[in-house]
């Protein structure tokens, strides 16, 4: 009986990850627009905050606030004085809101919301993903464009954006929108939630950037050019 033939060619290398189109230009444009505009909103917001650095009706009681009577450093503020901060804030809010509308309209009309919106059926996948990150499971669970934890994070950050706009209007026109202001617990409470949003956005930004570089650096290119060649090429 003849011995099996010795393979003369080395086994095939795993094929390189395919190059796939990942982000539509609307998504890329609004992503970077939001980054720049939100930075401007936060910086002018910190300038405005300095004019009265606490929350609660005059004379108290005041809300729990680690930054009570705190002046943020000059480099973190935009506007120079209260009127300058207000004018930046009330200018940048329009393109920020417009970008938000454009992005949400794109998500809705293109059907892309399906790969982004966290739904009850993603709960099981989110638990598996969390197990993987906690090293309770070895293999990376299969995923589409985004894993369920990403969907959860992106869904929450969109909701936070909506809440920031609504609390913003509640502070901007507390008499004309008194129903909205009341919904948030009154003028000072709306200011408080509006301020909280700053820290959630900031925390999100830090974690978001770390995860891009640690988990999937190819996604940075995808958010700039639209093209992606990386670990998670499939789309759902």
């Amino acid at each position: 009986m003849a011995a099996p033939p010795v393979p003369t060619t080395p086994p095939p290398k795993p094929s390189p990850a395919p190059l796939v189109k990942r982000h539509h230009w609307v998504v890329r444009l609004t992503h970077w627009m939001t980054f720049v505009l939100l930075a401007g909103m936060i910086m002018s917001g910190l300038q405005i905050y300095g004019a009265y650095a606490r929350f609660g009706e005059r004379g108290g009681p005041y809300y729990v606030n680690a930054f009570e009577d705190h002046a943020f450093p000059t480099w973190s503020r935009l506007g120079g004085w209260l009127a300058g901060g207000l004018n930046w804030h009330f200018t940048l809010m329009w393109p920020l809101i417009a970008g938000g509308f454009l992005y949400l309209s794109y998500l809705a009309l293109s059907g892309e919301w399906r790969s982004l919106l966290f739904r009850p059926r993603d709960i099981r996948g989110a638990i598996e993903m969390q197990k993987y990150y906690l090293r309770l499971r070895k293999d990376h669970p299969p995923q589409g464009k985004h894993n369920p934890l990403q969907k959860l994070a992106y869904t929450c950050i969109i909701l936070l954006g909506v809440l920031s706009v609504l609390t913003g209007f509640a502070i901007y026109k507390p008499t004309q929108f008194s129903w909205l202001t009341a919904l948030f617990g009154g003028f000072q409470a709306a200011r408080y939630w509006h301020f909280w949003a700053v820290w959630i956005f900031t925390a999100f930004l830090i974690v978001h950037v770390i995860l891009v570089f640690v988990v999937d650096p190819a996604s940075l290119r995808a958010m700039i050019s639209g093209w992606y060649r990386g670990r998670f090429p499939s789309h759902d």
Partner: protein
Amino acid sequence: MIDRRAFLRLAAGAGPASLAAACGWDGGNAVRPLLLDISRFNNWVGEKVLFSKNRLAPQYPIADRTAQLPSYFISPAMPTLQDPKAWRLEVSGLVRQPLSLSIADLQALPRTTYTVKHHCVEGWSAIATWHGVPVSAVAERCGMLPQARYVRFDSFDSGYMNGWDLASAMHPQTILAYGMNDNPLPESHGAPLRLYSPTKLGYKMTKYLVSVTFTAERPGGYWEDQGYPWFGGV
């Protein structure tokens, strides 16, 4: 030629960098005029889109009055009248009958009392009760002419003044207040007479009033001319 990818990268980098360079900066000569243009647009939105001449600000029970309501004036010391008895409010401009009104005259006009929240542009708020005569009642008394589109309020506080759009001035809750928290208006809050309205930010509510003038041209304002929003509605 610059390709699209490089351009997007550049834009992504330049945005935050230019913002960082802008810290503590009101826009400089290049951007400040643009910001003020947008502020004028926001005035228009505030006046024509968001403001409702019929919507009343919420009122609060007297028990909700806050412990503090800070006192603001621009003079080095609290403005006071040498001779309070000689004080008169001059009502003039585009009117059929200019008026010179004493506090007693004003108190004889229809009286409005409400307990409302005061919103300062700085971000604080406070609740107090105010007593006064609606500006609309004074406008009726002096026979305001149809050409009047704005109202100018002047004070004896180092020339502090404000210009108002007519619709805000005629709002039923816009009053010339001679009383606060069941007492005559204190000096710290603009005695003998101040403008009050829960539809405006505090800096729009002229204290230490001396005159009300109905005009066709838009008057400026002490803070408004320095960059604060002119409409200042809440």
